[in-house]
């Protein structure tokens, strides 16, 4: 008691370098924040954005047709290459797949996310998070190969269809042009299913977070003002969950745009952008074209986000 009573109006510094630093950071809080973000800033700024920029630069060079060497001169002819039929096919194929995967994930993820945000309590919440996260802990390659087995002609899915005597449905589906094929594991349908499975958590979690932020009394208010559950969904829940859906779609869309493993293992061996980049910068040694291909998803994502913002998707933020 006496020791406390003797202290003056201003307490002595804690002393040493730690005390001096505490006082300094208290007076200059921005300095502390700056020091904390510095490593990430260096990493992102130099290693990541820097190399991305170097890559972009590469896309403005071109390959000399005769010597096969890279000509270090500014030119747009590599970009013109992208518009050749075979390359345009790759782009269209990849973007269509990414779009279909994104829309399907949003549709499948929404009810799950809604249940988790509104109804799951206590242990059910744990089951939800575990169910979403568990697949993320397993190796991506293992999951993709597992799917190849599931979807194969001798796989469990075929067997199941047989047991249910509905193999004709599967055959009919596989006989369809474009999405069909010899078996699910070598069709676009198979590629789609694996993409859908692998990216699903990235769609569910942001939507769940968005729905969780919607106060329940907004739903009460909507019903009170005469909205049927359907109207409440489209006029209140959906617009407020939209930023979450957009966040999720950024993941599913860009991950599909960039992936080069899944279409290689499950699918009909037609190239996706990722595979094109891989082969051009590797075996083909055409780094400018690989770089130009890399620019495509970036441009598409920028356009997509710009469009989403214009459409008011972020108004609720």
């Amino acid at each position, binding site marked *: 008691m006496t020791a406390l009573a003797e202290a003056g109006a201003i307490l002595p510094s804690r002393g040493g370098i730690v005390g001096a630093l505490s006082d300094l950071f208290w007076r200059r809080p921005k300095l502390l924040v700056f020091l904390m973000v510095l490593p990430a800033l260096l990493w992102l700024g130099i290693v990541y954005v820097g190399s991305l920029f170097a890559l972009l630069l590469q896309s403005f060079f071109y390959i000399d047709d005769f010597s096969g060497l890279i000509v270090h001169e500014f030119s747009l002819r590599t970009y013109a290459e992208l518009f050749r039929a075979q390359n345009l096919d790759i782009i269209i194929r990849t973007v269509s797949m990414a779009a279909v995967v994104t829309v399907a994930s949003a549709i499948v993820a929404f009810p799950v996310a809604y249940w988790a945000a509104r109804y799951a309590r206590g242990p059910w919440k744990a089951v939800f998070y575990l169910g979403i996260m568990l697949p993320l802990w397993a190796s991506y390659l293992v999951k993709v190969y597992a799917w190849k087995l599931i979807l194969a002609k001798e796989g469990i899915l075929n067997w199941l269809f047989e047991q249910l005597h509905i193999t004709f449905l599967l055959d009919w589906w596989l006989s369809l042009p474009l999405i069909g094929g010899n078996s699910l594991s070598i069709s676009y349908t198979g590629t789609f299913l694996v993409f859908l499975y692998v990216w699903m958590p990235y769609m569910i979690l942001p939507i769940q977070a968005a729905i969780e932020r919607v*106060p329940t*009394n*907004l739903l*009460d*208010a*909507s*019903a*009170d*003002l*005469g*909205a*049927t559950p359907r*109207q409440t969904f489209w*006029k*209140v829940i959906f*617009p*407020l969950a939209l930023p979450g859906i957009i966040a999720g779609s950024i993941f599913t869309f860009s991950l599909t745009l960039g992936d080069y493993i899944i279409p290689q293992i499950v699918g009909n061996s037609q190239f996706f952008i990722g595979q094109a980049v891989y082969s051009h910068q590797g075996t083909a040694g055409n780094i400018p074209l690989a770089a130009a291909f890399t620019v495509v998803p970036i441009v598409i994502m920028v356009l997509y986000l710009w469009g989403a913002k214009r459409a008011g998707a972020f*108004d*609720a933020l």
Partner: protein
Amino acid sequence: MTSAVSLQKVSRHFGLVRAMDEVDLDVAPGEFFAMLGPSGSGKTTCLRLIAGFEQPTSGRIQIFGDAVEGIPPYRRNVNTVFQDYALFPHMNVRDNVAFSLMLKKLPKVLRIKAAEEALELVRLGGYGDRRPGQLSGGQRQRVALARAIVNKPKVLLLDEPLGALDLKLRESMQEELKALQKTLGITFIFVTHDQGEALSMADRVAVFNEGRVQQIGTPEEIYKRPQSRFVADFVGSSNVLDPEFVYWIVGEKRWASLRPEAIHVMAAGQSASRMTGTIISKSYLGPVIRLMIDLNGTKLHASVPSNDAVPAEGEKVTLGFAKDALHLMEATS
């Protein structure tokens, strides 16, 4: 005449918790009705049952003579002003107000016109383009009000609508709400835990405690003739006197209430009254001074006009009050 809202033996139980227990209520058309009670007393549950957000465990609810069992909120011509306003953050003020009209598929021109009129009514004309996030608490409260009345409901429910506002704003909103109710002629049912608000605004007040209605009456009846210790204590912080003490004064063993302002405080020895006590504490409240007086172990509150000469803390005083100021309530329990 049919009641605007009528509850007959309505209970709402959540597991073992009896949020409402056999509540009977009748609200007349055009009435300004307040439901007053501490938190957890069942008043908000009562409001939610009328709005249709919850269903009663048992009992009957009628709105203008129609039974509303199983009728969802969106089919009840009743609108609610929510405690924290519940404005839609993704819409501007005009679209918030016009929400119910949009659902009714009213042509855009008409619903904008109606929304602007409702906003004028709550003195927020010209705020239509703003977002709820850009408004102050008082303004949001008005938007919530405009949104609820634009539909011209049969009954307007208000769930502690002034709770989040500061004192000055609350007082001016109280007057505005009363005026608005007169203009519209709609039945208002108002939930509050603020007894001053309930007494000053309502035509009639229902006092809730522990899921039951303790008393229903005009503000004057509630204030002057509380029927139970709870009502006496909760409404206007009356002195609740125990049966022993009352017996000592009037010779009857019953609980009684005595309003602090009914007590005359005199310097000791100025009267023949045998009620002599000591001032324990003294708080200055502006127009009045509130005294706590110890009278042989019974603590009494008295409020005296602040321009009177008031004895200091620790001084002995003699108390007096008119006999009819002592309001007798239930017998010993």
